[in-house]
């Protein structure tokens, strides 16, 4: 199985590389390799990130590292995940794409068959544009909004190459059009709709079999899983918390030591995850951080 991570410095600033985010990225790949030693890991990065990760001496953690090259006119500072659908659109094999803040704690090979799998369903909220959006109506191929759930793609398994290419190309196309249409009025609601809502809509409209890791629906308003379940999930809530962890919006709270989240404890936890993979020395990593990472 080809497993991919995409990490792009969308700001161009060195402060983009925080210790927390880089540690998450390392923990993500280390745990993946611990539980899936036969999978082929791939990292897609921009030139600046490549240079930074060379300095940190962590590129050996992936089997392949590729420099992102694409000319699509997408405002990536706001539509920050715009490079992910591009990577998906260029796949030649079934693939799995994982966010840098997604940690796995068990082998999931038994589930990687012919059905699309993503992390969980989430309800629509202010994080998403809706059917009234005037700019969406101006798209060559507007999002139709025929259902009310979005697919969280912090983990996304795409077994059908043709579907992956169609989804990736359609997302890149829409992000490019939104960039041209909205200019300074762009916001991440357009990214969420193109990347996550549209995936769920495509799967339903095309009657493509799909599953979620978590049975419970995530409430974007309350930032927690609801009691409500879908009927396509693999794990219940208790199993899910033991089987994977998606940091998502918690990253900001950890970074700022807010709402009861503690930065130091979180870093220690991630270090234990990395150490458990036996792929990297924490002392060596700390030394590299001290030398090359200025942002905590």
């Amino acid at each position: 199985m080809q497993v991919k991570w995409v990490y792009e410095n969308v700001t161009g600033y060195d402060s983009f590389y925080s210790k927390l985010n880089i540690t998450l990225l390392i923990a993500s790949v280390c745990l993946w390799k611990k539980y899936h030693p036969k999978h082929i890991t791939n990292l897609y990065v921009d030139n600046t990130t490549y240079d930074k990760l060379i300095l940190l001496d962590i590129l050996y953690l992936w089997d392949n590292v590729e420099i992102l090259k694409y000319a699509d006119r997408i405002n990536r500072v706001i539509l920050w995940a715009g490079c992910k659908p591009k990577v998906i659109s260029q796949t030649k094999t079934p693939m799995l794409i994982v966010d840098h803040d997604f940690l796995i704690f068990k082998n999931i090979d038994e589930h990687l068959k012919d059905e699309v799998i993503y992390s969980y369903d989430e309800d629509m909220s202010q994080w998403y544009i809706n059917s009234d959006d005037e700019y969406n109506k101006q798209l060559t191929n507007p999002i139709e909004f025929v259902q009310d759930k979005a697919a969280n793609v912090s983990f996304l398994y795409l077994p059908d190459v043709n579907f992956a290419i169609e989804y990736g190309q359609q997302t890149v196309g829409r992000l490019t059009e939104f960039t041209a249409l909205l200019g300074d009025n762009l916001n991440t609601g357009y990214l969420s709709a193109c990347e996550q809502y549209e995936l769920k809509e495509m799967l339903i409209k095309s009657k493509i079999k799909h599953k979620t890791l978590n049975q419970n629906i995530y409430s974007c308003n309350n930032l927690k899983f609801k009691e409500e379940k879908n009927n396509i999930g693999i794990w219940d809530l208790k199993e899910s918390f033991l089987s994977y962890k998606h940091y998502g919006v918690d990253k900001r709270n950890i970074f700022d030591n807010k709402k009861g989240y503690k930065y130091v404890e979180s870093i220690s936890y991630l270090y234990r995850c990395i150490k458990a993979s036996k792929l990297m020395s924490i002392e060596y990593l700390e030394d590299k951080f001290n030398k090359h990472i200025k942002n905590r």
Partner: protein
Amino acid sequence: MAITLDGTLSTLAGATTSSYIRIEYIKYMPYAGLVEYNPMLFKNETEADISRIRYFGDDLPTSMLPIPHTSMSFESGSFSSDFELNDIMVLPLSGALQNVSVDHYGIALQSASIEVTDFDDDGNEIVTQEIMKWQEFSVISQSIEERHPLDLSRSGSILSQCYEHLKNSIAEQIPSGSILEI
């Protein structure tokens, strides 16, 4: 549905014995605790008819047929009085004051303990407890306060209740026998 006055109503547009008062719109406003409506006065039923467009695309009336509610007087037999009609009238939706338990809402930080996968110093999997936190819009306090309860379960049409309210308001100025509902 409309109200006509049995008598002579003197207005800025001249005197009329066939005055015609019609409620043009009603705003049902439970958040404000009231229904708001506006009565309009016409010299007669024909002018009231002309003033109302029936089909989209109809020509607009060439002049404003409603009569301004100023400087009016009413005569019927030996009765004579000034007559006033407000442009906007209000029908309260609320009842008498009563003690009620009031919920106060706010953003509350909630938490729950969950089991997560962790690792010991040797890299062995262990299960530990973690506190999961989230924010929720919820009731954060309650108090007993005096409030006017909203009556949202009115029986019968709101329009007919507005006409009833209008009739009662007019009856405070002229004999109720002179107020005819048509």
